[in-house]
């Protein structure tokens, strides 16, 4: 009954796509590992591909950015924490590994692309209080494996992408992100409470803009998404029951009037005992979801809060079935010079999967190409060489670009595949080390992109939930990617207090060489039988001065007088003025 009305408004929102529209939804689901996952999605569609000059819903900041730099597609995701795919299963989309991920596709002339990329990074840096500048150029690569967006006309697009594993995600990033929305206080956004987000197991936040076409009218689709993963309760009472309050410790406040649809979807779990009555229950890809429109949640009965109770409390001993597909990377080796980078991809399904494996290695990882290995242990623990196709490789160039490796691997059923390289660290110049040099540098995570989707029990693509009601199958357009973890590489460091000494020492050695050769070529050797003439007075004076200086130095060292103190004394003496 109710959802019919909803549906009308909704289709209004979708079909009349030459109007700017805004849809917000929150999807709460329980993972096989009993963690709870909350996905926020805020979708804004523009009127057409010509943005501005006056913006209603579509954020002006991004609009101008797109227009100014000739960007067709732009994606930015910042993530805190690691998605352990071998425990949680494949991540919801769009996701990224720890840190920040930024990718853009430019049209227009190719010669200005790099400048524009730098300019984009710079602007986003300011707009999102981020620190992305180190991405250019050393961490920037050309993606060979793009997510598909449909474009008005076949344009030649230039892709640039970069990842910064070290990039932090915090409140100051959330605030500008929140400012992109039509409703900054009311609606689902009011749930995003920093303290809960940054205390969670995994939290990612970002946006993705790409053009979309339907019967020769095109528009930009901006999808802002935030993902929060909550830990299982391991305290005394291990109840999994939740309510919006318990997750975000605040209820939904107010309804966003700009939104054509604003709903909370709750994934129906078999252990679910009771909950607030949903307005509707829909089925997507065989999964059941309870639908709660925001207006209803704000009703006096629930007061902006909905709850779910389960029959059982969490059982940590429960042997969950192994996750369908997982990937994780490890760093091997005992010393801080050479090492082994090993990525393990597990396919626990009974059918073989073809995945595209991608790895970006910064230039300071001098990996040995001939040690690249791809091996699989199949279900019978025998080692087999998997079928590997379309290799893409571009080697690193020092300080200019990272190495980029991509290959299509066919994972046998129930197998564990291992991709490994041996590498050596490059020795950096002193200025190139980060401020905390002894902490080390980070290698971006390896990713695999699935050729054939596997079900995560979640509608990865918000388009699926758009067509609420008609419980048809829905094939998401976004590719399914699984991320491994980023790796910390402890680097061999020089002694940072040495430059002057080293310059002097090496200079001395070289001058020793010169001093050996030069006099022999300019002077002649004469034998002298009488006593050698005593050394000249000047030399004595010179040595005297040296002696005095050294004595002075010792004295200052002894009553630790700094050079500046000395300088002040001298200036006082000379009443020196600057």
């Amino acid at each position: 009954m109710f959802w019919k009305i909803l549906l009308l408004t909704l289709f209004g929102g979708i079909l009349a796509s030459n109007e700017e529209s805004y849809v917000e939804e929150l999807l709460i689901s329980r993972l096989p590992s009993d963690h709870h996952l909350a996905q926020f999605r805020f979708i804004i569609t523009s009127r057409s591909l010509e943005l501005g000059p006056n913006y209603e819903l579509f954020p002006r900041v991004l609009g101008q950015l797109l227009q100014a730099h000739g960007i067709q597609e732009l994606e930015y995701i910042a993530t805190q924490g690691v998605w352990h795919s071998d425990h949680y299963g494949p991540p919801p989309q769009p996701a990224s590994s720890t840190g920040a991920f930024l990718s853009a596709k430019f049209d227009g002339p190719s010669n200005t692309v790099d400048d524009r990329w730098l300019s984009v990074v710079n602007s986003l840096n300011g707009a999102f209080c981020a620190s992305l500048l180190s991405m250019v150029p050393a961490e920037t690569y050309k993606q060979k494996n793009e997510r598909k967006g449909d474009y008005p006309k076949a344009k030649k697009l230039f892709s640039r992408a970069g990842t910064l594993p070290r990039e932090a995600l915090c409140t100051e990033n959330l605030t500008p992100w929140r400012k992109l929305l039509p409703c900054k206080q009311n609606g689902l956004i009011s749930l995003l409470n920093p303290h809960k987000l940054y205390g969670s197991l995994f939290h990612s936040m970002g946006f993705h803009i790409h053009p979309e076409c339907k019967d020769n009218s095109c528009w930009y689709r901006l999808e802002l998404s935030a993902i929060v993963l909550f830990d299982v309760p391991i305290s005394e009472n291990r109840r999994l029951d939740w309510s919006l309050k318990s997750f975000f410790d605040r209820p939904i406040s107010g309804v966003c009037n700009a939104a054509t649809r604003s709903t909370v979807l709750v994934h129906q779990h078999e252990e679910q005992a009771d909950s607030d009555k949903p307005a509707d229950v829909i089925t997507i890809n065989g999964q059941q979801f309870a639908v709660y429109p925001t207006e209803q949640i704000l009703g006096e009965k629930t007061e902006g809060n909905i709850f779910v109770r389960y029959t059982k409390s969490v059982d940590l001993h429960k042997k969950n079935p192994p996750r369908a597909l997982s990937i994780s990377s490890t760093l091997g080796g005992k010393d801080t010079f050479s090492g082994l980078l090993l990525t393990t991809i597990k396919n626990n399904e009974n059918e073989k999967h073809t995945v595209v494996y991608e790895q970006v290695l910064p230039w300071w990882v001098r990996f040995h190409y001939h040690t690249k290995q791809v091996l699989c242990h199949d279900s019978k623990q025998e080692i087999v060489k998997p079928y590997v196709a379309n290799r893409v490789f571009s080697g690193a160039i020092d300080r200019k670009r990272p190495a980029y490796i991509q290959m299509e691997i066919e994972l046998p059923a129930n197998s564990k595949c291992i991709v490994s390289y041996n590498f050596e660290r490059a020795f950096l110049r002193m200025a190139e080390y980060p401020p905390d040099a002894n902490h080390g540098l980070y290698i971006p995570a390896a990713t695999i992109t699935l050729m054939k989707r596997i079900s995560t029990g979640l509608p990865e693509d918000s388009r699926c939930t758009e067509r609420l009601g008609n419980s048809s199958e829905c094939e998401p357009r976004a590719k399914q990617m699984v991320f491994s973890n980023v790796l910390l590489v402890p680097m061999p460091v020089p002694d940072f207090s040495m430059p002057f000494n080293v310059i002097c020492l090496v200079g001395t050695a070289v001058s020793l060489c010169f001093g050996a050769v030069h006099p022999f070529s300019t002077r002649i050797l004469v034998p002298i039988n009488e006593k050698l003439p005593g050394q000249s007075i000047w030399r004595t004076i010179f040595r005297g001065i040296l002696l005095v200086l050294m004595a002075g130095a010792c004295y200052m060292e002894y009553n630790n007088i700094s050079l500046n103190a000395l300088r002040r004394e001298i200036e006082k003496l000379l009443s020196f003025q600057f």
Partner: protein
Amino acid sequence: MTGSGRLPILEKILNKAPHIALIAYVGAIYWAFTIFRPEMCEHTRISEHALMGGVVNEKFDQEGVYAEVLHGLQNKKDKREFLLDRLTNYGVYAYEQRWKTTVGVLNASGVNVWGTTRGFRGPSAESILLIVNQNDAQATALLVALAGYFRSQLHWSRDIFFLLSDGGVLGVEAFLNAFHLTSSKSLAFDALQERGDYLLATLSFKTNVGQKSNEMELYLNQLNGALPNLDYVNTIVRISGLGRFRMPTVLYDLRDSNKGQDIPWWIIPARALFTQAFVSVEDLHSLSAKYGTSGVMLGLPLKTQSSVRKSAKLIEATVRSLNNMLERFHQSFFIYVLADEDNFVSIAFFMPILGGVIAPLLIFAYREWVYSIEALEIPSIIWVVHSIGILTWTASSHFFGDEQALVPGDETPWIILLGTLLIPLALFWKVPPTAISSLRFVLLLEAALAFGLVSLVNFGLALLTALPSVPLLILFTRPQNDRPRYRQGFRLMFSFLTHPLALYIFWNVYVSPMLMMEGLDAANLQLFDVVYPIKKIVSSNLLVGCNLFPLLTVVAIPIWNLLVSLSLPVDSIGSGS
């Protein structure tokens, strides 16, 4: 530029060589006795501010779990199953790791239990490892309790790994190998089910030996003389000294009731040097150094409820300050000698000792070079003994490394090895009389170089071997052309006794009791027990990669051979002089 004239100072040294050598040697010993006095040496300080030891409130309150697990361990049949079950129950991902040895010297196997809790808010790219021995029930129970407790905290920026090692140090070796994705010649083991990344530090603990209820024992000697970072040690000492713990630190379980309260000051440094030199594996922590991480072992009082809580909090505080640190341990000292728990001697002070001790070698070598070398002539015996040394080393490590090599109880291979090491090859190799002085020269230089090099990685070993062998080297290389035969004979006989193994036994049998530690006891050494030390050396080399054996075969024994050949009666090799 002057012509070829020697510096006057060198002239002086040459003329007074014996005196100067003696002065240097004695001076060095005197120096040692000066700087190792606690009142003389530097007070330890923490140079890594980020550690901030003991600033946090420790909140450990899981004695209940401790008691439960302890009870379970005493009653349950399948302990491993039980441990796994408990760990999983507290939300720790727990697994098993099976390992077995693949060498002839030892046939052992075990099953480690290990778990991890991820520092989920960070990139989870660094780890801290806590280790206990499975058969130490109390420590195990404490570790499980801690694991559960740590899992419920959210301020970890590093993954914390918990290892319940089965089979002591070999279990640890297996785990660390799997952790670092390295392979071991001596062990076969399962790969870890979960990734483990850069290891910052390891902290092992056990129930304390000296059954004191308030003392914390501190063990820090690692393989091949490596030591943990001094900051790490200090932090623990500081924390345990805090008002709320008040646990006096005890080094090398000395200052113990049944060993007498008051011990002379030199015991601790001497013990430090001795263990560094000869005790290749002290305990669970000893292998961390192989993997470039600092490891420390605590002996904790786990008798009473309160002491358990205190110990747990002590560990919590330590792990918290490890967690605080952003970078790895890089400041402070890795090369030091603890004179006492809050006093240490830094390399700048103790290196001169070795300098003084090996100075005589250099002086005499130079003297040789200037005065008595007609023309430098390297007798081929040098190459022969060294290559034979290398052969013995490689061959025996291949043989004993092979799984089916040894029949249990059969001592013959050992005796053969011992024999090869004991044979004075010098007897079968002719040294031309003209080459004797060159041989002397090279021998002295080589010995000096060897001591110098070893001292950089294992100061204790270098010093303790140099102390006795330098005088011997000097004495047994003295020219003896004009000596009566019988004295030459004596000298030959005595030169046999200077065999490195003899020195080793001398240290371990007679000196170690002086340092209040149990070596091999001389009383009931059977004839076949002579192979015991060589067994020990070889197996520790094969199992955990202790480098005593290669040093012995490739350096020490050749030097001994040359020594013998130098003390052969001269006319027996028919020199005309």
